[in-house]
């Protein structure tokens, strides 16, 4: 099953709060899980990514938590800022070496209130 399910569809958080976006997948062949951030009128930009051999990856205020047994992963945005307001996509990658197609979640529209 080549699907990635993402929730919630939209999220409103107060400035300084924690934003949490969840994704789940079925295909255990997926071996790379990136998160993309997209602002209106722009293409998706790679934010942070994880491989299934680690349970957590942190870059600044952004953390991915990965649960291989549950086939779930989530993005946590600490100290959320109005500038973080964007659409966030999780994805899962499958393929050999550098040639990989991305299977995308539906996206989460995040609004951070000042």
């Amino acid at each position: 099953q080549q699907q990635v399910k993402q929730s919630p569809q939209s999220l409103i958080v107060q400035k300084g709060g924690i934003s949490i976006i969840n994704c789940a997948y079925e295909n255990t062949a997926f071996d790379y899980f990136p998160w993309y951030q997209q602002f209106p009128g722009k293409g998706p930009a790679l934010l942070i990514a994880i491989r299934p051999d680690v349970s957590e990856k942190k870059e600044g205020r952004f953390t991915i938590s990965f649960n291989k047994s549950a086939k779930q992963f989530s993005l946590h945005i600490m100290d959320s800022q109005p500038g973080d307001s964007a659409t966030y996509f999780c994805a899962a990658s499958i393929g050999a070496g550098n040639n990989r197609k991305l299977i995308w979640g539906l996206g989460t529209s995040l609004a951070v209130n000042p």
Partner: protein
Amino acid sequence: EPEVTQTPSHQVTQMGQEVILRCVPISNHLYFYWYRQILGQKVEFLVSFYNNEISEKSEIFDDQFSVERPDGSNFTLKIRSTKLEDSAMYFCASSERGKQFFGPGTRLTVL
């Protein structure tokens, strides 16, 4: 910082017409992709391209679609005879070490 560029930003065409969407990938990248996003729906993989040939294509990428790298810098997506349902945002991406970098997209509107 190098980036993927796409032209035009918006293309309006009549049903049945041919369109060519253009992309300039990041210069040292070797893998190229097209994705599309119909309004309100998921981003969908169309095709990947490496070493001047298609590596993989989705079921969406039928005989009406083709890709080409006509020179050392451009990567194009051609839709031969557009349909209403081809209206979408089309994103080009190029990758290095598995990380894909996306262009700003071309919004295709088929009337």
